[in-house]
């Protein structure tokens, strides 16, 4: 068995080494693929806080991914067409600045997660899965019918948005930006898991009755986890849209919610680097097998089946065994 911290450091090394190699070998496509994996990983880190720590099986996390995507799309669309978002009650212009776009994505997805969380957490189990799925479908069909922003066709952004001091059009620079954000999110996630809030949330997942008898509110703990989770996935959505310079209703689709969940399950539910491993494996399979057959998902399905049947802790669980206790 490998120590989990060692494995995690190895994964970070891989996240740096592969793009470094690609840079020297002049393989910009590999860097773009790695950026895709890192952004997916960030979305899944978000879900892992709700799913792994809070035990909330959300099949609607594409809502936040899509909101982040449209936050970018709408702001950049107005900026590139030189039209204001609104003139009343005050003039609001679009922007091509990534920090502003990210902040908008985080604020919007936080708000959405709060509303969806309050309504969904009235239920549990299968009903929670269904209600989050239903919210996902609502946003999906809303985006399809929102003709002001491209409707079914989505929005194309011609030039990637800017970040002060960087040329984001250079693949490796954009990759570096995304990687730093992912590592920051992982750091926050690690601290969160050990914090008093994390302790209470962990207990709320396992034994809500106990949490209540010590005077805490398990539902409120889960709601806060859901909101933090949605905010991170929303930020990932903005990065994803900027990577593709395109946003469309598929970012809201339930298939995407499912994929985010698959990243977490393949890597290991509740494991810090589980989402990263899952996203890397997914993108690798998509790239390697996608070239062989359009139906590569069948292999993904087999892998998922094997992991769920034989390795409940995902790939990290198989390599490292059970999670060590904090001390």
């Amino acid at each position, binding site marked *: 068995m490998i120590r989990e911290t060692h494995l995690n450091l190895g994964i970070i090394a891989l996240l740096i080494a592969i793009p470094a190699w690609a840079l020297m070998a002049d393989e910009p496509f590999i860097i773009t693929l790695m950026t895709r994996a890192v952004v997916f990983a960030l979305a899944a880190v978000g879900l892992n806080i709700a799913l792994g720590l809070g035990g909330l099986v959300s099949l609607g996390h594409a809502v936040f991914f899509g909101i982040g995507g449209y936050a970018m799309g709408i702001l950049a669309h107005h900026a590139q067409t030189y039209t204001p978002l609104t003139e009343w009650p005050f003039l609001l212009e679009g922007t091509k600045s990534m920090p502003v776009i990210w902040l908008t994505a985080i604020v919007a997805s936080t708000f959405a997660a709060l509303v969806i969380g309050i309504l969904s957490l009235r239920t549990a189990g299968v009903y929670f899965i269904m209600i989050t799925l239903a919210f996902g479908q609502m946003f999906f069909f809303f985006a399809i019918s929102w003709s002001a922003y491209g409707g079914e066709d989505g929005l194309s952004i011609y030039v990637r948005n800017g970040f002060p001091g960087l040329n984001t059009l250079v693949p490796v620079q954009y990759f570096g930006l995304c990687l730093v954000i992912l590592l920051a999110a992982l750091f926050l996630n690690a601290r969160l898991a050990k*914090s008093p809030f994390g302790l*209470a949330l962990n207990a709320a997942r396992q034994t809500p009755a*106990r949490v209540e008898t010590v*005077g805490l509110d398990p539902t409120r703990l889960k709601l806060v986890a859901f909101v933090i989770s949605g905010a991170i996935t929303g930020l990932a959505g903005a990065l994803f849209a900027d990577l593709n310079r395109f946003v469309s209703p598929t970012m809201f689709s339930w298939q995407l919610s499912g994929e985010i969940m698959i990243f977490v399950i393949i890597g290991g539910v509740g494991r810090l680097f589980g989402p990263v491993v899952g996203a890397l494996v997914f993108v690798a399979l998509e790239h390697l097998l996608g070239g062989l057959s359009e139906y590569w998902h069948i292999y993904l399905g087999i892998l998922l089946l094997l992991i769920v049947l034989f390795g409940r802790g995902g790939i990290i669980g198989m390599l490292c065994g059970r999670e060590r206790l*904090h*001390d």
Partner: protein
Amino acid sequence: MTDPILKTHEITRFFGALKASDAVSIDLRPGEIHAIIGPNGAGKSTLIAQICGSLAPTSGRVEFQGRDVTGLSTRARSRAGLGRTFQISALAMEDSVLQNALLGALGASGRPWRFFGPALKDSALREQAEDALTRVGLQDDMHKRTAELSHGQRRQLEVAVALTLQPKAFVMDEPMAGLGSGGSKRLTGFLDGLREQAPILLVEHDMDAVFALADRISVLVYGKVIATGTVDEIRANKEVQDAYLGEDA
């Protein structure tokens, strides 16, 4: 006589046509252990649920520290100082023993909204948690995973979590359940000293423990209190013998 800390006023609870609690009036006075006994299905758990707030009585009221708490949630009652232990251990099995005790201390502190510093490094919480674990004799097992504890140790941990809350009154639902005679004796000894800190409402099947500990006993049969009194009074009560204790008592 001192005012009771905890009191129920004729609480009645129907489940459909079944009267699970029938005008139950009991009280818990400072410094005492008041045991509730009764055959299976007598409504002991229903009574506990109404006292702790997970079930609302159909009629009647619950008073805690002179205040009507009938409308309050489980959470509010715990914050007011009601420390409960569960009949079936409700512990976070994947977490360490220390983490379970820390959860109690965290609840008592009322400050769970801290997202950054590690809970295990919070010296105030940790001191409270370690102190409670030491008192129940789990100081050497603090860093074990809770799932690895024996059944008896889990019962001890249940009590430790309640201790971290520093409650004004304990409500213990069969703390001895499933303990061997050794474990049962040890816990009896511990509870004996605990009454000085806060009185205990004790629901228990283990008659040796009840007779050793209780200052007063109430006997519940078909949801009704048929007798309340000292150990000797209860032993001598004809009605209790017929209904419950049987010929061997």
